[in-house]
């Protein structure tokens, strides 16, 4: 359960947030709080001494379109992004995650940077070669450091963030959102479950972009002149208590062929 003594801090700016993080050992950034709550309930050893609520930070909660780019604040609830619908593949992917009530709490930043291996919302952003704006505490007396970077560059099985680094927003070209896309998602049984495989497929001029979550221990993506080549590039899936590797491989093939059919 949550410790009895817990500080709750609600900064108004990104700079304040990282400064507060530096000042409190064992602090965590809070948006939806679902993972923090679950982990604290599950394990008494989950360290959390302070929660830094980032929902007051304007740039982390904004959803905007400007200069041909869509920008999504990292603290936005999944349901707000799905309801907006500016990026249909992201909308479809998000609607596969959890259920509506839970999506009202889950933030896109939390889904992508959380501890669970699925991180489905990252798939459309990886395919779109999205940019990420983050802020990190400066070392020593230096001021906080803002930077914008390609999501793909710091993604290796998971996002590689520095200590105290806070994602503020993601952005991507609107033109990408208009490309033909297909989404497939399968679970062990009912729809509200982690995916055995979630598949995001986009057709662009040179061929196909393919992202998959759930089949491997982390999200993977690849491109290829045809769908089969992209699938092959992803490597073999893994088995766990939800499904065997074999079944996942079979699912991915049927899912890909039906997605390709939809795009043909």
């Amino acid at each position: 359960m949550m410790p009895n003594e817990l500080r709750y801090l609600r900064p108004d700016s990104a700079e304040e947030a990282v400064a507060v993080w530096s000042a409190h050992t064992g602090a965590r950034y809070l948006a939806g709080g679902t993972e923090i709550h679950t982990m604290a309930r599950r394990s008494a050893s989950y360290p959390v001494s302070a929660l830094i609520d980032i929902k007051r930070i304007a740039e982390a909660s904004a959803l905007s379109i400007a200069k041909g780019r869509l920008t999504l604040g990292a603290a936005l609830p999944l349901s707000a992004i799905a309801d907006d619908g500016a990026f249909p593949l992201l909308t479809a992917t998000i609607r596969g995650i959890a259920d509506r009530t839970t999506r009202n709490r889950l933030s896109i930043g939390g889904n992508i940077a959380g501890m669970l291996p699925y991180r489905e919302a990252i798939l459309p952003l990886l395919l779109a070669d999205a940019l990420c704006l983050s802020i990190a505490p400066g070392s020593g007396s230096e001021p906080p450091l803002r930077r914008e970077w390609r999501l793909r560059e710091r993604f290796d099985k998971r996002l590689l963030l520095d200590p105290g680094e806070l994602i503020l927003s993601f952005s991507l070209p609107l033109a990408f959102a208009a490309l033909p896309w297909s989404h497939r998602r399968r679970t062990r049984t009912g729809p509200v479950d982690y995916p055995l495989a979630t598949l995001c497929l986009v057709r662009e001029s040179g061929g196909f972009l393919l992202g998959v979550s759930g089949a491997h221990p982390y999200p993977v993506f690849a491109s290829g002149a045809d769908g089969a080549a992209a699938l092959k590039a992803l490597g073999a899936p893994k088995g766990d208590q939800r499904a065997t590797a074999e079944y996942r491989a079979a699912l991915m093939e049927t899912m890909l062929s039906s997605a390709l059919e939809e795009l043909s």
Partner: protein
Amino acid sequence: MTRTSQLGSSPERSDAPAKTSGALRYTDDRVRPGTLHAAVLYSPHAHADIGRIDCAAALAFPGVRGAFTGADWPDVLIGLYMGDKPPLARGRVRYYGEPVAVVVADDEAAALEALRLIRADFTPLPALGSPREALAPGAPILHPDLGSYRRIAAILPEPGSNVANRSRIRKGDADAALASSPVVVEGEFSFPPGDHAAMEPRVAIAEFGLDGRLTVGSSTQSPFGVRTLLSKALGLPERDIEVIAAPVGGGFGGKAGIQLEPLACLLAMRFPGRPVRLANTREADMVSSPGRPGLQSRVRVGATREGMIQAMDMELLFDSGAYADYAVNVSRAAAVACTGPYNVPNVKADTLCVYTNHPFATAFRGFGHIELSYATERALDLLAARLGMDPLELRLKNAARPGHTTPTGATLDPNTGDLPACIARVRERLDWDAGRRAVLPDGRIRAKGIACFWKAPAIPTFTDAAATLSFAEDGSAVLATGVVELGQGSFDGLRLIVAEALGMDLAMVRVLRDADTDRSPHDWTTAASRSLFMAGRAALEAVADAVAQIKRVASAPLRCPEEDLEVSGGRVFLRDDPEQGLPLSTVVLGYVYPNGNAIGGPVIGRGRYIARGLSGMDPDTGEGRPGLEWTMGAEGVEVELDPRDGGFRVTKAACAMDVGRLIHPALARGQVVGAMGMGIGYATREAFVFDSRQGVQNGSLRDYKLLRYGEEPEYFADFVETPQGDGPYGARGLGEQGIIGMPGAIAQAASLAAGVELNELPLTPEHLWRAMREARS
């Protein structure tokens, strides 16, 4: 004065506003200031010797009042039918999640923090993962003291083995009948254990008063049963124990036995004058507290070429896990009904309750009947396939009717429901005759399945109920029973029965909630779908008693013989001259003459009921009459299967049940539809997944998935009404029955769709995909 009957109408549940708004207070909503909180250390091993448990650091933690292990209560054994379970593991843990140590502190956070400081050493032992493993020669014996456990006579353990109970049915000569049957089929059918997943996790709050009395608030279906069992386990007389049952957030049998109460009470006795709260997290509720049994079974059926069943020979092995709890009686109940609702002249059955290193099992909705039904219905499917006969026709042909005998040799009396009529309704609902299997244009396969069920309450021969009826100044009536509200809605059914018997408006009748062993009339247990039947009978007697008292008082001012009076419409009046009468409000607390003289006094109606004509079973043949009233019915489903990846869903589910008399149609439908939904979950997903050392891999709702609202099929709930002569207004029990046939019906439909016999549950898409692939190769 004639009144139209209110039976068969569906007034809104009286607890609907409190439940839907969240205002209703369950047991854990009733924590008093000053309460101590307990936290439990659970075993990470399914089977291990316990080494040293060091609680010193935990005891030193601020706010901690005590830390305890099994050694603190070296002689206490808890059980229902058989005392085989220590309150905390002693020397050895027998399942993953078994309580090993407990910390009591001023608040829950301190208790949990301190729990982390306990050091416990274990030496893992080989773990038994199924009944067949546990019965194999050389298997470790999980309960070496089985022979010395306190038990009731009806339970037959086999010391020196892992058999906690063996019930035998020997009716006719099954061996000879099978040898001479022209058609014989045999199959093995199984599924793993699982959880009830009731919405409310279990909780017990106990206080040992300075007067030496123990008071326990518990999320229990059985306050009186808990009182008796606590008395046995703790050595306190019943008069010194009070058990209070607030409304329960779903039981499904999982709260029918004894659960957290003994440990909570033992802790409370260490801290006199302070309540101690022991509450399950969801995860503990799933794994540490009991779930439902798993099954391994073998069934042989012999029949004529025309499909008349001649004999059944079966072995049902219930996976009881580490302790016997209710599962010993579940296996016994399965013997009583082992053939399903069919006329089988020759039966040989052994139903065993077997210890394994799985989480232990207790009662579950259906009480052994899902298990036996799944096994026999699958065997009938094999028979239908062998005969080339429609599975519905096979069932219709063999349906049990009045005059036939049950496996224990009891004759089905004229109160028996009309199973052929139920089959006919399901046949219509699913448009059965339009074809059982079709390939849809997109490649998916649609298929149908049918199964029949019966169930009699598996209860002691002396199962009782009682009721009192008292009145308020306004002439309204209040019924008190020992029934617990657990969502089933018995109170609203009882309210209708009382209103009907008194000829009173429903608004003038209340039924008291909160069963309390100090205050409520005695009641066996709110289980076995018997509350409306038995408490209903007691309520009718209480009404009759109250009416007699009302007439006696009113006969004086009305100056007439009592037998000329009638009570109805809130009045007592002359039958032949209804204008001559008095409002009940002037009689029920005593009648006062104009000059001030008073007669009578408060009317209190008393009613009671005890099961009629039940007897035990012969230990060698099973002969006897253990079943009170048999509720029968048929269920069918339509499913869709995607042969490419095993994608599978139930699209239609129909149940037709003979309920004798429909008292409250909306509640009855709710029970039946809820049970069917639960059956779909049971058949398609709900089961524990074990690792190679029998640890539970999916012991949380993150991983253990239930059916969601969006996945519900189209439901049809139909009722046939063949009156139960001794039931209240002809009604019989219906709460559990809707789940019983679902696994069999779904497995039949899935097998037909997949083109391969599916004999294991749960029927997940991967399971189906694998079976189809193996069948092809």
